[in-house]
């Protein structure tokens, strides 16, 4: 009976450690996919195998193991390399046009269509 209980405890512990390992791995992959490679700048470090990308992956892994959150890791890289390092940049005063311009063009297009239709209806 005792052996069964010990085995059960061991199995539960293993399953928990596996779950936390897979969660860490998921987070690591997510972060790696959002960080730009310094050498091959069109690729994320997840896709790249350059020396610097490999080093960055190790840094990400180390920081996750140290208990840093996703946001903390992004801000670490942002301090070192600037906003450019992220594939998903945050909305700010420097890039607001990039975010808003497509919406504005879309709205302007809609207004033009409505006005045109309005004009046609009147005729």
């Amino acid at each position, binding site marked *: 009976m005792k052996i069964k209980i010990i085995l059960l405890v061991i199995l539960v512990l293993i399953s928990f450690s596996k779950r936390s390992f897979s969660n860490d791995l998921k987070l690591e992959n997510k972060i790696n996919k959002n960080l730009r490679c*310094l050498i091959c700048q069109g690729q994320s470090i997840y896709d790249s195998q350059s020396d*610097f990308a490999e080093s960055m992956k190790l840094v990400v892994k180390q920081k996750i193991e140290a208990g840093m959150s996703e946001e903390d890791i992004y801000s670490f890289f942002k301090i*070192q390399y*600037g906003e450019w390092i992220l594939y998903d940049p945050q909305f700010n005063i420097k890039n607001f046009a990039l975010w808003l311009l497509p919406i504005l063009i879309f709205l302007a297009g809609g207004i033009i269509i409505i006005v045109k239709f309005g004009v046609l209806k009147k005729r």
Partner: protein
Amino acid sequence: MKNKYLKIFIIIFFIFSFFIFYYGLKQKDLYTTENSGIQKFPNLTLQDFFTNKQISFEDILIDGNYYLVNIWASWCLPCRDEHIYLTQLKKNSSVKIIGINYKDKKSNAEKFLDEFGNPYEYILNDKDGIASIEIGAYGVPESFILNRQKEIVKKIIGPIDQKKFKKVLKIIKNEN
């Protein structure tokens, strides 16, 4: 009347596009971290190249007016080109040169130093490249000029050439 407005709009649109593309083409498409990032050099602890002892930057960045931290590797060809400038810089008493040997085989690095000379006061190993990322490096070779307060005064991306060497000398001279 409508056509007139349309023509003006198209002309303005083309002039606007022209300037956007003109400006865009003049910009360097290669991103550099030269003007971004950390101001204070992080205090990392790394293994000494010769003694294998753990040394922190705080222990070695002492007694200098300026420090030049140079990331290098024996497999890096541009590092060979810049080595002559580091050797010349070694003669300048205002600056101490610290090397970070990036992802290198010790025997190859030793051969490199035998062949080209050793301008470094200390050489620290960065076997997995983590330290280079922690200090915000972008590639090999790369150099950081630090002042007495261990603040990054200048970041040199790529090999030091004649032009960059003169800039380094100017920084050291001006702030003395």
